[in-house]
């Protein structure tokens, strides 16, 4: 893990959640009981190749996925498709901003459209031997895990 890249990924993701979903990081100094849901049932992935190769997986708790769709659409009538679309769009935005951090030779990398991750991608087995950065975000409307694999 590279602490500098890890912190940059966290800041990029927080900015995306704030701007697109009006969600904010829980106060790190808050010492009350917070239920941190890490039972992620759905994971979106984007892959990138070129100067840097790899993928980014984003998993949100059910509460976060619902709230993201509600806040992005401005409607309470949310379907499973809306929640998936919201995760895909967040993956697209966060991934697009992360890739320049990972480019190693001042080159260009190309990003593939987000889609639902396969089990082998979710377990990380598809990225054996890649560097990995893992960020867990605790937001006011749910939790989110971001894993970035790159080589």
């Amino acid at each position, binding site marked *: 893990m590279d602490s500098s890249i890890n912190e940059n990924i966290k800041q990029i993701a927080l900015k995306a959640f704030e701007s697109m979903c009006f969600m904010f990081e829980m106060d790190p100094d808050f010492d009350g009981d917070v239920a941190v849901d890490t039972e992620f049932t759905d994971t979106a992935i984007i892959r990138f190749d070129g100067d840097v190769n790899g993928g980014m997986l984003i998993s949100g708790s059910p509460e976060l996925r619902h709230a993201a*769709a509600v806040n*992005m659409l401005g409607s309470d009538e949310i379907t499973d498709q809306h929640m998936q*679309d919201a995760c895909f769009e967040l993956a697209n935005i966060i*991934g*697009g*901003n992360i*890739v320049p951090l990972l480019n190693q030779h001042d080159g260009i990398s190309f990003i*593939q459209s987000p889609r639902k991750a396969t089990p082998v991608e979710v377990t990380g087995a598809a990225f054996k031997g890649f560097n990995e950065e893992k960020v867990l975000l605790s937001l006011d409307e749910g939790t989110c895990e971001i894993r970035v694999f790159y080589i």
Partner: protein
Amino acid sequence: MALNVLVVDDSALMRNIIIKVLNLSDIDIAEIFQAAHGQDALEVLNNNWVDLMLLDINMPVMSGLELLDIVRANPETKDLPIIMVSSESQEKRISAIEQKGAGFVHKPFTPELLRDEIQKATGVIHG
């Protein structure tokens, strides 16, 4: 001057967000067209007058960059104001887009940023 705007993005959710921002802004909008990729957008452009196109980059069937090249090569649409709305952050790619005469709004964006870029691209003062 009320604008006819074409929003091109493969994400229906992102099209909704952009349209919501357009409707909440003080920009005078006549009609908003939607397309899910470049090929769809060409159909809209062939059949309608469009004053401004907001265009994603990464899309299936025909990407935003391919569409940008086609539009700029057509004498009837070569001067159409276009703003790319994308999470693309690589400076070389953004620079290549701007050299083709398109504006750029980076995702995530604020409503104010999108409105200001539209004003710059169209030359229409709002508010």
